[in-house]
Structure formats: structure tokens, C-alpha cells
């Protein structure tokens, strides 16, 4: 028993905080580190930009939006507790983008149909994932990995990799902005706000958090654990479908290798954002911070002319440093 006991060292919270203690509580917010890191990289990049930081900021918001969408889904899955991770996000994005764009075939009138197809393919993937996990008791990591191979094949089979152009109106929406804020960022903010409400205010979010801390206790306390876990995997896949739909529209068509970088990205933004991989402790704002950071760190290193190798090493070191600084799970089970 060499480690300090957590419950013993936890100072009781008092009312009437002094400014100092409220600052300290603020500093303990897990999402803070992600935003600090994003701000620092932003400043470092903006320092070498000609036009000041505005353009960079808008670009960062645009691309962070995609990471946010998949990151939120992944966050809910990870919140379900150790071992829960969805590795099928990239394949789902590809499938959703491919099917939707093929169905719309460039016709603006079919945009609602395309969106519906994208979301439905997400739904299908979610059902498949949870069926593998629950009915065949395959560990989630391997279940979603295996599913991703099947989904990838389905995407190849459906369109053989042809890039169908999105309807112009949709492409304009995806690349455009309203009042200076990129539309995709608006979508991601809305989704994030909804996710925040679900996580912090809704019964469903409370149940997800409970399962993540102690599945057994949650079941005994009357939480319908299967329904909640099912809904979580489905929402993650549906969000991936939405992200795939938007990304395909944004980049002028779905490609078979479209979502690949979101495999690790979706996990990284969740944990850098301050959610505990051990489950039961999540936050939505951190995902925005982490997504901005993950985009800006690459921009920064690119702007400073770092090669691929140095860039990767620094990215890795910084991820570890942030996680180590934010500290591990304070409360042990």
C-alpha cells in the first residue's frame, strides 16, 4: 500500500470558495489541458502566419468539426468502460459516404434521401457491432475490427471506388460558412451541444456514465444495460455515418480510404480531451479542444517545416505529456 489513499487525500469541498481555490478547481477541469494545448499551438502557428490567425482559426474549426463528430461517438463508446472502443468508424464513414453519394447521383432534390441513407448505414453498422459484441460475446475491439472489414468490402462492392460528385448545393453547404463560421463547424457545435445535454442532463447519459464505472452495479440498480450499450454503439456508428456524409460532400466525393485517419484520431481526441479511458468520466468540451489541437499541431509542425518523422515523434510525445500532466484516474475502484 505505497500509493496514497485517494479518499483520504481528497479535500472536502467547501462553500464560499476563495478566488484561489476556485482557480484551483478550475485548473483541475480535465478539458482545460486540451484547450491550453490548442491555444499554445495556435499561437505558435499564428506567429508565423502572414495574415494573422483568423484564416487559420476558421480552417481549424472546419477540420476539427469532423474529428468532433466521430470523437463524440467514440467518447460515448469509451465511456461504457474498459475495453469498449469502436474501430469500425473509418469503414462506416466510407460506406455511408459512398452509398449516400451514389444514391443522390448529384441531384440536389435527393439530398434528404442521401442523408437518410448515410444515417441508416450508420444504424446498420451499429446493430451489427452490438450483435457481434452481445450475441457472440466477442470483445468490442475485435468485434468492431472484424465488422470494419465486412463494411469495407461492402463499400468496395457497392461502388468500386468511383468518386461520385455531391450535389452542388450540398457541396456548397459543406464548404460554406454562415456569418463567418464554417457550416460543418456549426453542425459539429450543434451535435456537441446535444451530446453535452445528453451526457450532463439526460437520463440516457447518466446511465452510460453509470455503466462505465460499474456495469454490474448499474444492472443491479435497474439500469437497462443492454439497451443503453446498444444505443451507444448505434449512435457512435450513426455519427460516423453523418461525418462520412459531410466529409464526402466537403471533399467532393467519397473515397474508399476516406476515413482512415479517424481511426486513431477519434480515440486520441477523446482521451486528450480529458475523458477517462477507464470509463465513467467524460466531457464534451474537451473533444473540441483536443480536435482543434490535433489539427493545429500538424499545421504548426508543417509550418515550421518539420518532416514526417519529427512530426510524428513530437505528436506522440505531446500526447503522452498531456495525458501524464492531466494525471491518471484519481479514483481507483
Amino acid at each position, binding site marked *: 500500500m505505497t500509493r496514497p489513499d485517494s479518499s483520504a487525500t481528497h479535500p472536502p469541498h467547501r462553500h464560499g470558495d476563495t478566488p484561489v481555490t476556485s482557480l484551483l478547481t478550475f485548473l483541475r477541469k480535465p478539458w482545460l489541458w486540451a484547450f491550453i494545448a490548442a491555444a499554445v499551438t495556435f499561437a505558435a502557428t499564428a506567429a508565423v502566419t502572414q495574415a494573422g490567425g483568423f484564416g487559420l482559426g476558421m480552417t481549424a474549426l472546419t477540420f476539427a468539426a469532423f474529428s468532433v463528430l466521430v470523437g463524440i461517438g467514440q467518447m460515448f463508446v469509451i465511456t461504457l468502460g474498459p475495453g469498449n472502443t469502436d474501430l469500425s468508424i473509418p469503414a462506416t464513414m466510407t460506406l455511408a459516404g459512398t452509398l449516400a453519394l451514389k444514391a443522390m447521383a448529384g441531384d440536389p432534390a435527393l439530398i434528404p434521401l442521401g442523408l437518410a441513407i448515410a444515417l441508416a448505414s450508420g444504424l446498420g453498422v451499429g446493430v451489427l457491432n452490438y450483435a*457481434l459484441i452481445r450475441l457472440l460475446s466477442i470483445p468490442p475491439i*475485435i468485434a468492431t475490427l472484424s465488422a470494419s*472489414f465486412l463494411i*469495407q468490402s461492402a463499400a468496395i462492392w457497392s461502388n468500386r471506388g468511383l468518386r461520385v460528385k455531391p450535389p452542388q448545393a450540398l457541396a456548397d453547404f459543406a464548404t460554406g460558412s454562415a456569418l463567418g463560421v464554417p457550416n460543418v463547424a456549426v453542425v459539429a457545435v450543434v451535435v456537441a451541444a446535444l451530446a453535452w445535454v445528453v451526457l450532463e442532463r439526460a437520463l440516457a447519459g447518466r446511465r452510460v456514465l453509470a455503466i462505465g464505472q460499474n456495469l454490474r452495479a448499474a444492472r443491479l440498480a435497474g439500469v437497462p444495460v443492454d439497451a443503453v450499450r446498444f444505443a451507444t454503439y448505434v449512435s457512435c456508428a450513426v455519427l460516423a455515418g453523418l461525418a462520412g456524409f459531410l466529409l464526402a460532400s466537403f471533399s467532393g466525393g467519397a473515397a474508399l480510404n476516406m476515413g482512415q485517419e479517424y481511426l486513431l484520431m477519434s480515440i*486520441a481526441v477523446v482521451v486528450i480531451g480529458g475523458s477517462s479511458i477507464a470509463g465513467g468520466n467524460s466531457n464534451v468540451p474537451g473533444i473540441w479542444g483536443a480536435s482543434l489541437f490535433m489539427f493545429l499541431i500538424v499545421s504548426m509542425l508543417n509550418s515550421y517545416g518539420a518532416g514526417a*518523422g519529427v512530426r510524428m515523434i513530437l505528436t506522440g510525445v505531446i500526447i*503522452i505529456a498531456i495525458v501524464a500532466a492531466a494525471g491518471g484516474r484519481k479514483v481507483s475502484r
Partner: protein
Amino acid sequence: MNRDQLRILLPVVSLAVLLAAVFWLQPRAMSYLGLNLLFNLAVPIALATVAQMMIIMVNDLDLSIGTFVSFVACVTATLVQTDPLLGYLVLAAGIAGYAAVGALIHLRNLPAIVVTLGMSFVWGGLAVLILPSPGGASPEWLRSLMTVKPPLVPMAIVASVLIAVVSHLLIRRSSFGVVLRGVGGNPASVERAGWSVLKARAAAYALAGLFGTLSGMTLVGLTTAADANIALRYTLLSIAGVILGGGEFTGGRVSPVGAVIGALTLALASSFLSFMRLSPDWQIGAQGGILILVLAVRLLVGRGRGRRLAA
């Protein structure tokens, strides 16, 4: 039959069934040369799987083993070849790096998945720095070691058995391995008996680094050259191998022999698929399908232990 025996019997049976199917589809595989061709690339995978098993043994998960093996391959194909002393020093430093990661994870109580995810970027970056474009060459002794033709039994089989036996002795038989597995089973009890769980975890990680290093070296011996992305796939492959081999993600329940068999099964599964001559569209999907199939069988049989809630 008890659970432990089942745990090892199932992988053996699935390997045997798969092997029979392969022989049936492709009788030519039933020969010295055929077996070697079927299995020789499974040797580095088996080593990587054993490495992953060391981490799973202490209830962690390593997302960096694939990039680490790639890194080792790059070092082996370049530095070890041109400047052996420096090369081996770098390899030793890699193992020390693994131990340090284990210690960091324990000391700061960090989630292993995240730290090893970060490390996967680090190893990948180092690999790209060492070998920006594919190339290098295998040290001569390694090449001849990996292409040696022992009498009667092909190298791939000899090597697999050797890996299984050595890791079995180390993890299942030695008094040292017992403590390491104890950390996975009940860390509090190991700590209460006066062991340093910190050291034990670092040791498990160092062992993972060692087996990862061997994996990268044998890989270079087989392929004769390296590139920075050569073994990325090993990360997920090794996790699947451990699980196929009867290991569990938590509780220190791992089997080195099972892990090696799991790796061979995975290698054989993709051969089986190519002998089936599926349409290219569905070749990728079939790999997912076969993974599901093998795991489903394992868990259907394992159902017997009741429907208790997972704690």
C-alpha cells in the same frame, strides 16, 4: 474438462480444422516446402503476439507493438547492418524504452491504451527518420538463420515450437513468470507479499520489448529489407492472436502456447481465404468473417460457465 484445458484445447482444434481445410483445398501444402511457405511469415507474428501477451498479462493493452516492430526492422536493416555496435545499442535502448513506458503507466496510473497510442507515433516517427524510403538489407547471419533448412521439419515449424516452448517456460513455468501473472490476477495480493508491482510491470513491458525486437529482426531476416510501415498490422493482429489463443483481456489469464497457435491460426486463415479464390471485392470482408467465426466458436463453447454478470 476444466477451463484451463479448454482454453488451450480450443485454439489447437481450430488450428487443426483450418489446417485440414487448407490441405484439402491445396494438397501441395502438405509437404516440407509447403509447410514452410504456409508458416514462415507467421514466425514474426508469433513473436509479436507473445509480446502483446506480456502486456495483456498485466491487464494492459499495447497499441504500439506494430510500429515498434517496424522500428526494429528499420534499425536491423540499417544500423545493425552498417554499424553493429550502435545498432544493438539502439535495439537495447528500445527495450529500455518499453520498460520505461511500463513504469510511467504504473507510476502515474495512466491508461495504457493512450500512452501506447502516443508511443506508436513516436516509434513510427523514429522509423521514418531511420529509413525514409524502403530499403536496407538484412544482416547475413539473420538471413541464413531464417532460411536454414533443418532436416525433416521446416524452419517455420521449428521456430514456432521454439518460441512457444521458451515463452511457456518463461511465463508459465519459471518462478519469475508466476509473479508477473500474479500481477494480472490480483495486484493487491502481489503487493501485499512485498513485491514491487512497479518493477513487475516494467519487467513485463521489457519482455514485450524483447519479443517485439526479436519479431522485427526475424521479419527482416525473412523479407531481406525493411520499410517504416512494414509491420503496422501487427498491432491488431497480435491482439487478435492472444484472444484466439485463449487469452483474456483481464485477469492475467494468458497462454504463451495459445498465443503462438493463435498467430499461426491467423496466418493460416488468410491462406485459406486465398485458396478459396473469392471475388476480390469480398476478400477483405472474408478476413473479418473468418475472425468472427473463429472467435464465435470459442465463445459458444465457453458459454458453459454460466450467465453471471461481468464484474
